[in-house]
């Protein structure tokens, strides 16, 4: 009797679950027609800003604070060339720039712009000793400050590091997030796939010119194919009737699918000299006529890494601490992925306030 009662319980449990799931599916289907409209309403950047300097496609954006800045040294955000930089200012409650603006920093962001085929010959020298140097010079004059603080994310972190090594006299503090420095590690799939045995970067760039945005996007997608192609749509379907979830999802997807092409020569030198030959850690990475020597970096350094970063594993960023001559160094490893390092809840609640605190005594 008890066995029959227990099997009846199991059967009714499954029956209830199926009925509930059926109603939930109907609820979700009812929200689907409105998703497209919500996707169109996604804002790219929420903190009030103005463009203060432009050079070719590059724009220097100033984030407006209602109060005068508390710190004299301006802070310049430098992002990668493969995505749009509004990840730093994604939405209310998920904005890195807002944290610094609210903390009293005079905050700027360098938007590299979207290159076309005419820009396919731009090299690291153009970006580092051209656009970035000119932006820094402009900031020093505008803010009447002898130096600036640089905050670089991902490829932007590597660019900021190279800039600091070449122009240490202009940089007061260097903060890097998930910046690729030592490419000898084979932890990340990207490092494996760009091995010179399997990837002829010269043939690739000579044929395509600028590296298409779709190529980069698909490469990132293939780092986690099951999560991106199966789990994500399932997760979306199960939560599409939750307003907050849909808003977060659409905001994130808008940015993730907003890749930009990379200038061909820039990509060639980056892939060859960093991923394939790992010249930066050998202090032999050429930027124009100069070699980047990391030992010339003496300013305070904050090195932030993401523990579960599949794009730039911590093993790729950590070696910087031993390669620079800075005495004042701090490393923070955040329990998140590559994107979560900047906009994740833990980062917003704990990491950025402590970074603001660290920078306040050095600005």
């Amino acid at each position, binding site marked *: 009797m008890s066995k029959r009662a227990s099997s009846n319980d*199991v059967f009714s*449990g*499954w029956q*209830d*679950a*199926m009925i*509930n*799931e059926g109603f939930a599916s109907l609820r979700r289907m009812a929200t689907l027609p409105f998703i497209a409209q919500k996707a169109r309403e996604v804002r790219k950047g929420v903190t009030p800003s103005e463009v203060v300097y432009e050079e070719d496609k590059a724009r220097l954006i100033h984030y407006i604070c209602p109060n005068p800045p508390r710190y004299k040294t301006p802070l310049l955000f430098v992002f990668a060339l493969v995505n749009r930089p509004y990840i730093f200012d994604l939405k209310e409650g998920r904005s890195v720039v807002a944290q610094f603006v609210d903390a009293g920093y005079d905050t700027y962001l360098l938007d590299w712009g979207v290159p076309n*085929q*005419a820009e*396919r*010959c731009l090299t690291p020298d153009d970006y580092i000793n051209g656009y970035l140097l000119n932006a820094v010079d402009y900031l020093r004059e505008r803010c009447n400050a002898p130096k600036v603080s640089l905050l670089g994310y991902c490829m932007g972190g590597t660019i900021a590091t190279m800039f600091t090594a070449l122009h240490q006299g202009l940089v007061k503090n260097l903060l890097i997030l998930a910046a690729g420095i030592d490419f000898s590690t084979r932890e990340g*799939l990207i490092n*494996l*796939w760009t*091995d010179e*045995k*399997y*990837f*002829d970067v010269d*043939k*690739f760039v000579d*044929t*395509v*010119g600028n590296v298409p945005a779709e190529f980069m996007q698909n490469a990132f997608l*293939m780092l*986690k*194919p*099951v*999560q991106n192609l*199966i*789990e994500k749509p*399932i997760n979306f379907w199960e939560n599409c009737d939750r307003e907050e979830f849909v808003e977060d999802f659409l905001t994130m997807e808008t940015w993730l699918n907003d890749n930009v092409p990379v200038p061909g020569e820039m990509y060639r030198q980056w892939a060859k000299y960093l991923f394939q030959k790992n010249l930066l850690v050998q202090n032999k990475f050429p930027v124009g*006529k100069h070699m980047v020597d990391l030992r010339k970096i003496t300013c305070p350094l904050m090195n932030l890494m993401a523990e579960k970063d599949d794009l730039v594993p911590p093993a790729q960023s950590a070696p910087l601490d031993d390669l620079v001559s800075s005495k004042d160094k701090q490393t923070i490893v955040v329990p998140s992925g590559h994107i979560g390092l900047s906009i994740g809840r833990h980062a917003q609640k704990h990491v950025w306030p402590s970074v603001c605190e660290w920078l306040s005594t050095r600005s």
Partner: protein
Amino acid sequence: MDEKFDQAFQQAATFQKMWTDSFSQMAEVWTRASPGKPPPDVIREMRSGMLKVLADCWEEFMRTPQFMEYMKNSMDGVLALRKLGADMMTRNHHATQSPAREDIDGVLLAIRHMERRLLDRIEEVDAGIAEVGRRVEKLEELGSAPPPRTTRKGPTRKSSAQAGI
């Protein structure tokens, strides 16, 4: 021919191994399902277990030399096709006496080289001017310094009485 066949066979075998490993490990996940939990939780637990197994198998497969060799061959094929298309378009443009992308790229490259040479020369001039400026500053510093005190040896002044006037 044999080498290419061997390579293709290796790639297919690795791909097949990935799927057989995935299915066997997913079946293992099913056997570990906890019957005491309510149905939706059981389903979710099994689903996440299976997807994790699939993700791990794919990650392992994407690290194999066979997969990377396959990617390389695919890329080479796509680039060859693209180059063929570009060459055909160039020939068509030239046949109609209009500039092709290759020609525009050549012009851009020439401008780029000229820009580079000019910038290098400006950099040299800038360095030269800075050096001249440093030397001028140094000279100015030397010029503005007071001359050192020295005792003069010359005719001494005598009073008229001493002079017998």
